[in-house]
């Protein structure tokens, strides 16, 4: 197990006059799943897009620190699972996976067979030869998750990845994320508080343009939940 820290330093981002992220300083560690919660339009996707270099930021640095190194975070360190999965619709799942493995041979440390990979996300042999176009939203999501974890990126950003999945698949995915957390920094954005509390080790809210860790201390589930909701309400009143 490698201990990793993702350190965010002085991150700021505005759209015109509207400031969305303001001088954020925060650290995420491996071994934990972080639930990122915030009200609609508060800037969760902007935060992810900033980390993933999808947009220009006004200021800030992202460092990736392990026992021996302290380096700048690059896009190849990140696996970003977006809420609306985008897949090449006219490839079969098998072709998609095969091409991905062929292209990323150098990055994949423990290569498995195609079937072993499909087994991770429980995609049957029959479905493997179907066009991704004919996949349901949930199945496309599974493929997206699979592709994003194969190359073992150090940081995994998950933007509402479980919302469209059925209960059984949700359960499988939760187990998968839990199994991945020891070697990865996982940040999981969701609107469903119960899901965050069930899956995540820490809850972070994006509040007043800043990230705030909501300490659980010794609170029971009900009180912890109230504390999170109150923090989010404060944001609305701020």
């Amino acid at each position, binding site marked *: 197990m490698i201990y990793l820290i993702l350190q965010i330093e002085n991150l700021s981002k505005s759209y015109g006059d509207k400031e969305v992220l303001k001088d954020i300083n925060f650290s995420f560690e491996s071994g934990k799943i972080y639930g990122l919660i915030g009200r609609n339009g508060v800037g969760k996707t902007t935060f992810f897009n900033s980390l993933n270099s999808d947009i220009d930021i006004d200021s800030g640095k992202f460092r990736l620190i392990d026992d021996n190194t302290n380096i700048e975070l690059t896009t*190849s360190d990140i696996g970003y699972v977006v809420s609306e999965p985008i897949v090449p619709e006219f490839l079969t799942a098998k072709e998609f996976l095969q091409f991905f493995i062929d292209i990323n041979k150098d990055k994949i440390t423990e290569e498995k067979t195609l079937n072993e990979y499909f087994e991770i996300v429980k995609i049957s042999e029959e479905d493997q030869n179907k066009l991704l176009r004919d996949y349901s939203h949930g199945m496309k999501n599974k493929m997206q998750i699979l592709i994003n974890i194969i190359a073992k990126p150090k940081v995994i950003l998950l933007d509402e990845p479980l919302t469209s999945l059925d209960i059984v698949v949700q359960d499988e995915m939760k187990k998968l994320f839990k199994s991945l957390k020891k070697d990865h920094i996982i940040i999981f954005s969701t609107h469903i508080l119960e899901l965050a509390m069930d899956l995540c080790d820490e809850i972070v809210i994006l509040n007043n343009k800043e990230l705030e860790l909501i300490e659980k201390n010794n609170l029971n589930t009900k009180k912890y939940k109230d504390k999170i909701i109150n923090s989010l309400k404060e944001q609305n009143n701020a």
Partner: protein
Amino acid sequence: MLNTLKMSFKIDTAYATNSFIYTLKKLPILKDILSDDLYSSTSLKNFIRVLGIILTSAKLILYRLLYFFIIYMIAFRIGRENLALIYAHIYVVFALIGLIINTNLLSATKKKYFSIILFQMDAKKYLCTDFVWGLILSFILNVIGFSTINYSLNIPVLLILGLSLFSSCTKIVGEAISIWFYRKKKYLLTTRYKVTFTYIAIMLVVSCLPLIEICLTKQVFIIGLILLLFLAVISVFYIRNVNDYKLIYKKLITEKLVMNEKNSEAYTRQAMVAIKDKDKQIDNKKLIGKKGYDLFNTIFFERHKEILYRSAKTFSLISAIVIVILIFLVLDINDFAFEINNILCTQIGWFVFIMYFINRGAIITQAMFYNCDHAMLTYNFYREPKILLNLFKKRLITIVKVNLMPAIIIAIGMIILLYFSGGTLIINYITIPLFIILLSIFFSVHYLVIYYLLQPFNKSLEMKKASYSLVSGLTYFISYTFSDLTIPSLYFSIGGLVFTILYIIIALFLIYKFAPKTFKINN
């Protein structure tokens, strides 16, 4: 580089082959015979792959030949003497236009999204390989193009090579400029439409210089080519030295919202019919005394005033200006008056095309769908026959009113023009304007009826029904065909009146009978 090219080809051909099989599987009889196993059948895929390569090559060659032919036709029109020189002149100017507008390296396409983001290919390697391959392909196609066109041009071989080299150099320099500009300004040069259009306009004027016998000379071309070669060498170094292609591309793709899988056509449609800021506030006086669907309909049209009335007003204004100019010309020039009278009395078919062109029906129905029906159709109460037909009636009246605005101006203008251009039979003063008014009503009914009967859009405003496109295409084709018809306007307008009235009656009957079943969202 070769490996990247090979992989890129592999993905492309797999994608194209599967698309082809998918299309096959949609065909009536084949869809029952063919199964999903086909996607894993190697022998069939190999066959389709070869077929695909042949067809794609044929398409590329044809497009390039068409481009060469268009330049040839322009050169031929400008002057038949010195044809080869004029051809070279236009070719060079067009290549210089391409230098700015035909850049490809930074275009955020779906294919690049798959390769760079999903498959995580090395962005620099991928984009440069794609670019070099594009250059080689373009050079080969140019040689094919020149060899074909040279049967009648006789351009010296050395000049052909020079021109092909010139074209390749413009591509290299163009890409370098576009990358340099994006890195400096954080936006693409081509998105600055004023600059781009001004440049194109200037270059188009330059391309027409042979008309006044100013043409590219051998010396100027050689100097230009040497200069461009020099710039191309610098550009190659620059393109090779840029290392942040992946970051540039990620930002471009986020900006372009390709991530939402919005295809550009549907996206443009949505933007076209989006409610304008001006219309977000409605004057409350207009809503007093209205309730239910009457209120619903009034709100809808008030919110779309900018989209609907502005273009109708613009067309009315343009029509009025054209008519006034024509009246002055008719009063001033006898020959012109005769010509106009002749057109109005024997070629009224033109007005079918004009009325088709100015009718706002298509855009109104798109606005209806995107800003109202695609949400409302998910509620069952909205699809009850009585409510649906009631709303149809209210919409029809409003659409007819909107389109009548320019139609009445054209009709009045025709009466005046007919009178001042030499007069006509008294009955023509009635039937011709009436025909124009009815044509406007006809197109209003037509668009709304095909919208209700063939509702073609899915939730994203993508066109999903071939039948709608077919009917729209036929409408255009028939309207255009009428413009060539020479027939006394009296017969044409009376025939048109009868047909239009019959069509409206039948269409309304069909709506009442079928719309409750056909008016739904396509999946």
